């Protein structure tokens, strides 16, 4: 089994998370994904990467972006993009689509925060 699938599969087991993807920040390429595939992640990847790049660059130099997270909320969903690592223009993002009706947002994001450090290390 793919190490990436195994890794993001752990995030997908969190209640209320419909889809998870790992996105290359430099190119917007979806490196791996799991869960509900109705969303065209290949089309969404570049936009997610662009948002993350803006988030990284907006604080200015010397500001840590290790834990930067970009969220977008609609009436039914929370879309969360978390920067797992970033250095010299390259990095990896974790994208999660959270169903607001199925979970407590705070608990879901807390669980993602707990799992994130191990996602790429395992």
């Amino acid at each position: 089994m793919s190490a990436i699938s195994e890794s993001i599969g752990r995030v997908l087991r969190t209640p209320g998370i419909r889809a998870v993807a790992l996105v290359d920040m430099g190119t917007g390429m979806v490196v791996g994904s799991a869960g509900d595939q109705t969303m065209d992640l290949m089309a969404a990847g570049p936009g997610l990467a662009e948002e993350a790049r803006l988030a990284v660059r907006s604080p200015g130099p010397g500001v840590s972006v290790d834990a930067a997270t970009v969220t977008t909320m609609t009436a039914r969903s929370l879309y969360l993009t978390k920067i797992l690592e970033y250095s010299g223009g390259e990095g990896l993002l974790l994208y999660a689509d959270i169903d607001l009706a199925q979970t407590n947002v705070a608990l879901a994001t807390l669980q993602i925060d707990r799992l994130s450090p191990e996602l790429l290390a395992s």
Partner: protein
Amino acid sequence: MTESQEPVFPFRATGGPRRMTAGPLGEMLTEYAARGLSGTVRVIGDPGGLVHFSQGGVVAVETPGAPGPELLLSRPGQISGSSWALAYAAAAAGGQLTAELVRRKLIGAARLEALLRIALADAMFVLTAGQVDSCEAEVAEPVCLLPLDPPADVSWLLAETSRRLAVLTTLPSQLVPDRDRVTAKARPLDQRARLDDAQRDVLALANGRRTARDLAFALGRGVFAVTGELDRMHAAGLLAIGPRRGAAPVPPLTGPLVTRAETAAAGHRAGTAGQAEAVREISPPRELPRRRAAGRGGAHHAEAAPSGSALLRVLRLGFSNPQPSDGGH
């Protein structure tokens, strides 16, 4: 793979850097994938390269036009040279380098897989964005240092490549990654202070002689990612683009064409396809020429690899089988 599955006959196709899809090469790779190829597809062109297949999936793409995973792994903060050397030596003794790197905890398995996938997609983008003259398959176990496991699905890879080619056509700067040189513009100190590390690194190297491809190698980043970065920096007024590097010389079409009659596969291909077209044998030698002491006199002669180019074969023949002179010595 059985002979009836032998998929290839050479094709010739040319294209510029503004192609939107992988074209005939993509169709050929799709066909190999459908037939479950395990082997290597040699793509001849500029920059050309090798596409390694395992059971119909792509495990690696090598091209001189894009940094390989070894270079991406050598970036600061990744794997140190000494650790790499130790893992390489251990893997050479009978193991896989990817497994060895993970076993030594030099990199996580998921992170390594991501990096290999990113490098593979970048190399495929560079391969298809360039000129493709012909391609041919060698059915054998692929030999590559860092194979992607599990292999990449060809349809996914080609879709990603098409996306990148489409992005390339819409860049406001119209930057051509292997042609356009970039130059840093002079900026006031306060504006330079607002740059991040990646932008500063680019500006330090953008001396008017390097292209996006050159910068990718120098920075240890992908060509597509650097091209996007340069485009954004150009839009921000940080870089000037130009002058454009001249087109790479295309091998002349005159001269002897060598059919691959040495291999049964090539004979089969030529026979079944009824192609009058032959493949120019421009494959690089499998082994570089070496110097070797010829005797006590200290003379040297070049020894070319058996499968070297025509020129090297001529050199080898000339040195190892000297013609007797008419002087009657």
